[in-house]
């Protein structure tokens, strides 16, 4: 046995040192990483996306309902974007629930608050340490998803150009930068959910609702995004940035909605975290019955966030030109014609026809929705467009019909409806193997905030 520990000398009045945030942070990270649940999540995030992307890339059927899913055979850069779309819908809300939603509630469950406070003696430092530790683990999980899916895609398919949402071909270097930016942008809504998770964890204590709160909020936001909400309301939702990254893959990039989404998400993250902080400091740790209450969660959590939502809607509506759903006939026609021209060039190359430029094609589109040919607007799968173009040296104008399914966030899927030789289904030979005709079905994006040219 080693020498028995002896108490500090009676005169040693300042024997105890204040516990710094850095030490508290390390303590919290050790606790988090020691949990099997967190370890499994980290492993899953760093391994599963690579396997998923590699596996899907080998399949004959691709996830064409997900953005960039139809390009997974063509380039490795589609994989991380498909994963990003999936992560924004399911994975990130659930991951933040498990980590941020439990970081405070775990102490309630284990009955360790008083023990921790006796050692640290500062709720402020405990809050900071826990919030930072939770953030670290969340960032580790997000990084795992991004890196793993990218590695999986590049290894399985290769570092090849990516077709953007305007049909333009992005060189591998450009694609890499945009993929990285897209994942970085998604950190903002993830932080918003993490802040909501911290708030739920503090306000609801050991109640399972605290753990589920970020996932429930994310689900509610997804349901809201499926509705034809006014664009000002849509952009004011903290989860909108989970889909706004698609604006990076058009030229010019649709930066305004993306930046608004990021700003709104960060405001939500800061506000929710600040509310959690205030609630935490007000908590009476000497009262064992005080582990959060529904009443406090409503008065100090839900009501301020509802007020924040109202304020952000008002600010977005006042500072942007956004009106209605943001999906208007002229914008749809412009997006479709632009993308058609870019993809037409690609098809020309793949079919080894004489090269043609977009300028010479002078592609235009005429769209209508449910029989309305002038002033059509709003999301729906009843858009029908006729694309026209000019071929060099040919007097006649080419035309092709597309059925468009436009979702409320501005994304559309164009489905070729003839003529078959132009936008029907047939295989073309590409350097990576046979692929469907690029003009047959493609994804595009309408900028909800751009102004429509009149006349």
């Amino acid at each position: 046995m080693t020498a028995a520990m002896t108490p500090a000398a009676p005169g040693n009045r300042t024997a105890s040192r204040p516990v710094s945030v850095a030490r508290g942070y390390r303590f919290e990270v050790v606790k988090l990483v020691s949990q099997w649940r967190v370890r499994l999540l980290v492993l899953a995030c760093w391994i599963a996306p690579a396997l998923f992307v590699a596996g899907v890339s080998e399949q004959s059927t691709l996830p064409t309902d997900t953005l960039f899913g139809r390009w997974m055979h063509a380039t490795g850069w589609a994989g991380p974007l498909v994963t990003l779309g999936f992560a924004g819908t399911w994975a990130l809300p659930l991951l933040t629930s498990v980590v941020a939603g439990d970081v405070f509630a775990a102490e309630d469950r284990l009955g360790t608050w008083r023990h921790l406070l006796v050692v640290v003696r500062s709720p402020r430092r405990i809050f900071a340490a826990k919030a930072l530790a939770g953030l670290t683990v969340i960032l580790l999980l997000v990084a795992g998803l991004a890196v793993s899916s990218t590695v999986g895609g590049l290894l399985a398919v290769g570092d090849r150009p990516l077709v953007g949402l305007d049909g333009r071909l992005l060189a591998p270097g450009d694609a890499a930068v945009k993929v990285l930016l897209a994942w970085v942008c998604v950190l903002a809504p993830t932080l918003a959910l993490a802040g909501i998770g911290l708030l739920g964890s503090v306000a609801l204590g050991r109640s399972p609702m605290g753990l589920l709160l970020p996932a429930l909020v994310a689900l509610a936001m997804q349901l809201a995004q499926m509705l034809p909400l006014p664009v000002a309301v849509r952009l004011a939702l903290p989860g909108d940035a989970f889909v706004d990254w698609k604006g990076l893959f058009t030229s010019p990039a649709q930066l305004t909605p993306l930046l608004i989404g990021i700003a709104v998400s960060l405001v939500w993250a800061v506000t929710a975290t600040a509310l959690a902080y205030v609630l935490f400091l007000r908590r009476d740790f000497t009262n064992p019955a005080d582990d959060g209450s529904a009443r406090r969660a409503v008065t100090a959590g839900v009501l301020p966030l509802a007020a924040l939502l109202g304020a952000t809607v008002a600010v977005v509506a006042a500072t942007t030109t956004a009106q209605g759903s943001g999906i208007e006939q002229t914008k749809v026609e412009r997006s479709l014609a632009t993308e058609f021209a870019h993809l037409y060039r690609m098809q020309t190359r793949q079919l080894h026809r004489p090269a043609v430029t977009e300028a010479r094609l002078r592609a235009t589109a005429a769209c209508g929705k449910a029989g309305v040919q002038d002033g059509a607007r709003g999301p729906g799968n009843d858009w029908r467009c006729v694309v026209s173009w000019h071929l060099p040296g040919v007097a006649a104008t080419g035309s092709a019909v597309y059925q468009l399914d436009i979702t409320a966030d501005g994304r559309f899927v164009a489905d070729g409806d003839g003529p078959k030789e132009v936008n029907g289904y047939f295989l073309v030979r590409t350097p990576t193997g046979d692929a469907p005709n690029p003009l047959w079905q493609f994804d595009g994006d309408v900028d909800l905030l751009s102004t429509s040219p009149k006349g």
Partner: protein
Amino acid sequence: MDAHLAVRARGITKCFGEVVALDGIDLDVARGRIHGLVGPNGAGKTTLLGLLLGLAVADSGRLEILGTPTGRTFEDPGGVAGFVDAPGLYPSLTARQNLAALAALRGDDTRSAGIDDALEQVGLTDVADDRTRGFSLGMRQRLGLAAALLARPRLLVLDEPANGLDPAGKKHVHGVLTRLAGEGTTVVLSSHRMDDLEALCSEVTILATGRVVFSGPLGELAAGDRELAYRLITSDPARAHRLAAAAPGVRLAADTAGRHGGEALVVHAPVPALDALVAGLVHAGIALRELAPVVSPLEAAFLALTEPRVAESRDTRQREDDAIDPRRQRAEAQPQEAGQ
């Protein structure tokens, strides 16, 4: 402040809403002593221990810990460690990892923090690398004590550390606390185990409904003319019974044979009357083979001092409830009236 006092409390009052947890508590705990805190459930023991640990401040009154007046919540008087309710352990960590994480949190070098020593002192060396998820209550209590030892406290505050301890665990804990007190650490502990407190403590404070009903050396509880029950085993039970029945100040227990066996004699007597009875037995040539209190002096004092107060408090609350809710009075009166 008196330099030899580790804790000095005067007029401490603490309320949670309308509940008065502590009501004008005075308490002196000398340095290097093991001081027991006993009281019925809800007496305010844990609240008082929480104040000593700095988890809360009193609503009124003055509390000095290790010579320093306390003034705000979570203030660190330096040298105080312990736990209330239960030791804080993380089930996903092993016993050693729990202590190492705690030592690192305090800023100690985990290699020289004395983790192995602390584990050995509380008898947990064999399970040092087991996750605490599977630990029994007694093992958790011992690990909580080990965690407190790492802080090298000058005031150790423990809330019912004997809970769940088996005899071996109890021996370890008693050994550690006795040694610490010998080295100058003051220990304040609460417990419902009177035998533990009598074995460990030099002084006790008895709380009831948030007030101190006794505070002082254990010996004082047994002193005086309080009547206690004693069990006697003699060489001649029949003659001993006759002598006890005739002895002044001695009452025979009603059911001596039932619970204590036919050979035992149970009497109720204050200490002087018991002394006289023992002298009388010896004088009559009856050998006294065993003499022991049926209920320990501390337990007897605890029951004598707290039950009337708890009952009084219950009655007061009942009267207050009745005053608040006259409908209930009427409802309770109706069956009686119907019966008449």
